[in-house]
């Protein structure tokens, strides 16, 4: 069958318009590929959703970061490869002068499109301070930034109120580090506010040439770009929410780069599609089973510890992730500062020890509920926990909720439901700095994102200190202790950091990603 099909010309099929009847003649590319074939090299990739914003100060989704990285410049950007690091982008030079001052010098000749002239330090000041002036919800990513002082047209100094180490792998390198044209933004918005989906000027190697909602995002070369020429003439990103649909789009030849689901990973690894490279990248997610320590049934730490010890993590990962992910030791993924080499409770747990804790608590016939989102992965996690806890005599009722319902369960502003919350299957996306991954568990987050209602003054103290320690080893130890405190409270059983497998067609491209598999499209090269 395949041999026959390879000889079919889809172009003729198009011409005759006899597709329904299978008007088939010879040829190599799928129809969609022929339709989209533009002059020059076109990178065709799937994203996990459509764009809703292209304003770095107000972005919502990863796909927006991927696109913004192509159309705007930053002082520094993530270095492609398997280790987290950064490299110069718009900055010619950048240095930490002292714990609260970072001096930068911008390369000369970086142009904003639309006649907005050259990028200067004034634009950097505007872009970074704007995040605070406009009360962006992303302001915490800039921590204690106070102001940007200008020294001359190209040189400036970032001034922090207190040392803020996450600036290197969070503030400057993530989306909020993009530099916008002050003149262009002020002209477009009057007050420097959110410009939504209409970038007033571009400064990256690509410009947004076309966007059809739910259809495609097309980036083409920026004619005014003075930096190194990127590999592709055009980048076409197709938003597809569903992972399986993305895989089908790849197999059908509609795209040449996509992320893939974990349950398909083993299959793709052993039997990859033709001319395809499958790569497994660790994700920055962290999943855990949480326990609301304020619930009367879970108030006793011995009950919580019994649950921790009864949960066999590798079993859960086999069931819910097809065994394709790591065992997490905390909220900080491997490769990041503060990752713990191992958890306090061994991954396999220990039923005998779990029973001891229950006896210590003097609890019999305990029945609890576990809340999760209603997707297959999280439901499977909940069901596996249900089976595991039944071994120590705990009966579990699984409450699978739709996404939007689930994400309000522990929120005090949403009513009294947080009081009924008992066990939770939870998962947050992380960023490359541990500051981001540990903040949701501070005391001031109780009833907002800290649904376990974990309260530790020591944790808060360490979190504040960790922002100021430059030495990665010393800083890492602080974060490790924070995760110890979390686990020792009995409120958390860490599961996994997930994984982010991708595949791409080697006949079309050489892909380039961050260490978490997020694509750096401007670094992709044609095959």
């Amino acid at each position, binding site marked *: *069958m395949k041999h026959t*099909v390879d000889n*079919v010309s889809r172009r003729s*099929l*198009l011409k005759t*318009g006899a*597709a*329904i009847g*299978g008007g*088939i003649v010879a040829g190599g590319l*799928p*129809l*969609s590929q022929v*339709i989209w074939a533009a002059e020059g090299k076109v990178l065709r990739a799937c994203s996990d959703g459509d764009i*809703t*914003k292209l304003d770095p100060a107000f972005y*919502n989704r990863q796909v927006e970061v991927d696109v913004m990285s192509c159309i705007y410049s930053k002082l520094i950007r993530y270095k492609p490869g398997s280790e987290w690091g950064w490299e110069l982008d718009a900055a010619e030079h950048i240095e930490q002068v002292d714990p609260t001052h970072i001096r930068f010098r911008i390369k000369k000749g970086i142009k904003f499109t639309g006649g907005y002239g050259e990028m200067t330090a004034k634009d950097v000041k505007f872009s970074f301070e704007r995040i605070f002036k406009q*009360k962006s*919800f*992303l302001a*915490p*990513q800039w921590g204690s930034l106070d102001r940007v002082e200008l020294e001359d047209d190209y040189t400036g100094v970032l001034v922090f109120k207190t040392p803020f180490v996450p600036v290197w792998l969070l503030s400057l390198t993530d989306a909020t580090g993009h530099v916008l044209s002050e003149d262009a933004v002020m002209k477009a918005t009057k007050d420097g506010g*959110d410009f*939504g*989906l209409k970038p007033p000027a571009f400064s990256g190697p690509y410009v947004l040439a076309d966007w*059809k*909602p*739910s*259809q*495609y995002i097309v980036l083409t070369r920026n004619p005014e770009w003075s930096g190194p020429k990127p590999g592709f003439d055009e980048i076409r990103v*197709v*938003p*597809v*929410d*569903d992972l399986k*649909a993305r895989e*089908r*789009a790849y*197999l*059908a*030849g*509609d795209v040449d780069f996509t992320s893939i689901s974990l349950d398909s990973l083993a299959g793709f690894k052993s039997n990859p599609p033709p001319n395809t490279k499958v790569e497994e990248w660790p994700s920055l997610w962290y999943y855990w089973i949480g326990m609301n320590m304020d619930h009367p049934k879970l108030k006793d730490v011995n009950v919580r510890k019994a649950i921790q010890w009864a949960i066999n993590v590798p079993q859960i990962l086999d069931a819910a992730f097809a065994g394709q992910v790591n065992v997490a030791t905390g909220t900080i993924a491997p490769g990041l500062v503060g990752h713990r080499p191992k958890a306090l409770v061994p991954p396999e747990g220990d039923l005998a020890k779990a029973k001891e804790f229950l006896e210590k608590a003097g609890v019999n016939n305990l029945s609890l509920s576990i809340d999760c989102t209603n997707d297959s992965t999280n439901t499977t996690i909940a069901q596996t926990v249900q089976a595991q806890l039944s071994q120590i005599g705990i009966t579990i009722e699984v409450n699978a*909720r*739709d*996404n*939007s*319902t689930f*994400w*309000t*369960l522990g*929120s005090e*502003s*949403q009513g009294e*439901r947080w009081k009924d919350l008992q066990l939770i299957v939870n998962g*947050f*996306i992380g960023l490359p700095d541990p500051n*981001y991954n540990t903040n*949701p568990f501070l005391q001031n987050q109780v009833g*907002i*994102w800290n649904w376990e209602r974990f309260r530790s003054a020591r944790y808060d103290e360490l979190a504040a200190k960790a922002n100021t320690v430059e030495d990665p080893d010393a800083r890492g130890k602080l974060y490790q202790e924070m995760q110890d405190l979390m686990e020792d409270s009995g409120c958390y059983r860490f599961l996994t950091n997930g994984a982010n497998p991708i595949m791409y067609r080697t006949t079309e491209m050489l892909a380039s990603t961050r260490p978490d598999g997020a694509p750096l499209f401007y670094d992709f090269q044609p095959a």
Partner: protein
Amino acid sequence: MWLYLLKRTVLAVAIVATAMTLVFLMIHAVPGDPAITLLGPRASAEMIAQIHRQLGLDKPLAVQLALFFGRVFHGDLGFDAFSQRPVRDIVFEQLPYTIELIFVSILWAVMIAVPLGCYSAIRRNSIVDQVTGIVTVAAIAIPSFVVAVYALLFFAVTLRWLPAIGAGGGFKDGLIYLILPAFAVGLGWVGYISRLVRASMLEVLGENHVRMARSFGISEWRIVARYALPLAILPTVTILGVGIAWLLSSAVFIEVVFARPGIGKLIVDAVNTRNYPIVMGVVLVTTFLIVAATTLSDLVNAFLDPRTREKL
């Protein structure tokens, strides 16, 4: 007739208003918060409150509902919670994709089903009629999303003849992208319409004027085309008018399977994220479409058969 038209229009407006009120109350009754979905774990309570203020969610429910109807009266459907784009723009961007999907699905289904139904009626109880009967009933029974998945796997993934996702751009390109989705939506209608046409044809073919035509020696195909089909097709036209709700629900599944833009996919995403303005906007437009199609169908019936005017 004018009085009937007036009554029917008032009823249509009342149906749309009731549907909107019910949907508004239901979606607010279900737990969920667009601000929390939007902001995620990075959000503070103040930020969530700020989004609530922007969306008007800090106001009492009755006030929110009154404001919604007030805005609708002025042609304003509000703003998307995520992108802050006007809901009206978003809905009318997506609506043409769904309409073209429904239109093409019905078009090809009618083109195949009507001759098939006529043929089965003429050759009643023949092998062809029996086989057609089995196949068409099977086509009705298979859900459109099952057809969609298998068609996609076979024609897009295995054979790679057709695109698997999206809607393409331009007329010719758009048609190519429509083939699989329209096939999936239309297949059930082929079965449904052909059975309907067959039944109507059998009834009409037994009537006096047809027998008289036969006695004059007019050919069977001419009788079918000239005397029987125009009458037999009427129930089908009526069914197509009121079947728009069914078609819209099929479109929801198909748009999700083919990652195709359209209001079906739009509302699924909006409900999942509790994006209230989008949900209300899509429901308003689809309810209007369904009520308009039903009203139009009733008006046509009333025009053709005056007895129905008394039934309102």
